[in-house]
C-alpha cells in the first residue's frame, strides 16, 4: 500500500478507547457549566501520549473509527428522522398558526 494505513488488529484493539478520549462523545463541553466541570476531548497527540502510541497511528484509528462507529443503517435513519421532525414542526408550529392569522 502506497500510503499510511494501520492494521485491522491494531484498529480493533484501540478504536473504542480512542473514540472515548477524543471528541466523538462530548460530555460537559459547555462553557457555563458549574466551575471545574467543563471538559474537552483530547487531541491525537494527547491520546498518543496516554496510550503509548504514535500520534499518526492515533489519527488514523480515529479517522476510521469515526466513520465505522455507525452502520449504513444509521444514514437511512437520519433521512427518515429529518423528514419526520421537519414535517412535525411545520405542521404543529407553523401551518396551524398561519391558518389562525388568515
Amino acid at each position, binding site marked *: 500500500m502506497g500510503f499510511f494505513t494501520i492494521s485491522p488488529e491494531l484498529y480493533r484493539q484501540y478504536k473504542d478507547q480512542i473514540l472515548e478520549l477524543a471528541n466523538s462523545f462530548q460530555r460537559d*463541553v*459547555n462553557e457555563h457549566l*458549574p466551575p471545574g466541570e467543563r471538559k474537552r476531548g483530547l487531541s*491525537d497527540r494527547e491520546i498518543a501520549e496516554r496510550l503509548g502510541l504514535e500520534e499518526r497511528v492515533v489519527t488514523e484509528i480515529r479517522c476510521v473509527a469515526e466513520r465505522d462507529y455507525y452502520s*449504513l443503517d444509521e444514514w437511512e435513519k437520519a433521512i427518515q428522522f429529518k*423528514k419526520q421532525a*421537519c414535517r412535525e414542526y411545520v405542521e404543529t408550529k407553523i401551518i396551524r398558526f398561519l391558518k389562525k392569522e388568515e
Partner: protein
Amino acid sequence: MAAETRRSETEAAEAKARIKELALKRGALVCGVAGVKSFDAVAPEGHRPGDLLPGARSVVVVGGAPPRAGDWISPIPEHQETMGTSQRIEPIGRQIAYHIEEELGYYALFVPGGVSRGNQPFLSLMLAAELAGLGSRSLAGPILHAKYGMLYYAAVVTTLPLDPDPPLETPVCPAPSCLEMWEREGTTPCIKVCPASAGGCLDGRIENGRFVRTQYDRNRCHTRVYTNWVGGFQKSLEAVLDEPDKEKRKMILHGSFFTKSLWSITYSGQCQAQCFECIRVCPVGQEYRTKK
C-alpha cells in the same frame, strides 16, 4: 513611552473598529475579537491560533449567513440542506484577512472551515466565536447568538494586536422558555426532538437554571448533518464493493442515496449542513426568523 503606548492603543482601537465596520458592511451580522491566550485553557496544543500562525496575537471572528426565515419553515428539509452552508460567511473572513495584510501590514491567516484529519478542525470556530463574545455553546451543539440564534462563523488569526471582546457572562442557552419546559416536562425542545436516550444525539439536565451533565454524540450527529456527504459516500461505496451481484450493485450506484451523495461532495469546498432539527425548535433567534 506612555505617549507611545497610548498611540498604539488608539491605533489598535481604530483598527478593530475599522475591521468590524468592514465585516458588517460586507454582510456579516456580528464580529468579535478573541485574544489568543484565551484558547490555551480550552483548546489542546496543536489546535490553538499560534499553532496555525506563529506570532498570533488576535483572532477576528465574523458570523452571519444563517438560513432565511422561509428556509426554516419549509416542510421540505432537503431545501435547507443547500441553504445551510458556511460558504457565504467565508468570503467575508477572507476579505478581513486581505484588509489586515494589505491595509494594516500584519500577517493574517484565514482559518479554513474544513477539517485537518477526520472530524477534527484546524481550529474550533465554535470556540473562537464563544471566546470572541459572539454567543455561547448550546446544549444542541452550535454557538447561539442571543438575537440571531445559530450563525455560520469564519475566523482570521492575525499578528495584529487587538483588544479582545469578553465572552458572554450569561449563557444564551437554556432560554427562559426552555427552563419553563424543563420544569413542566423534564425536557427541552432540542432534547425532545433528538434524544440520545432514543437514538438521537443530545442529553443533559438543568439544575439551578443551567445545563449540567451535557452529552452530544458527534458521530451520530455526523450521519444527520452530513447524510449525503463524504461519510455517506464512503459507507455506500463500501456497500457497493461488498455487493457481488452486478444488478444489485447498479441499484446502489444509480440509486438516490449514492447519486445525491455525489452531487453533494462534488459541490465541494464548502461546509454543507443537512440537519437542522435541534435548532429548528430552539427558541433562541425565533423572533429574528419569524415573519408575516
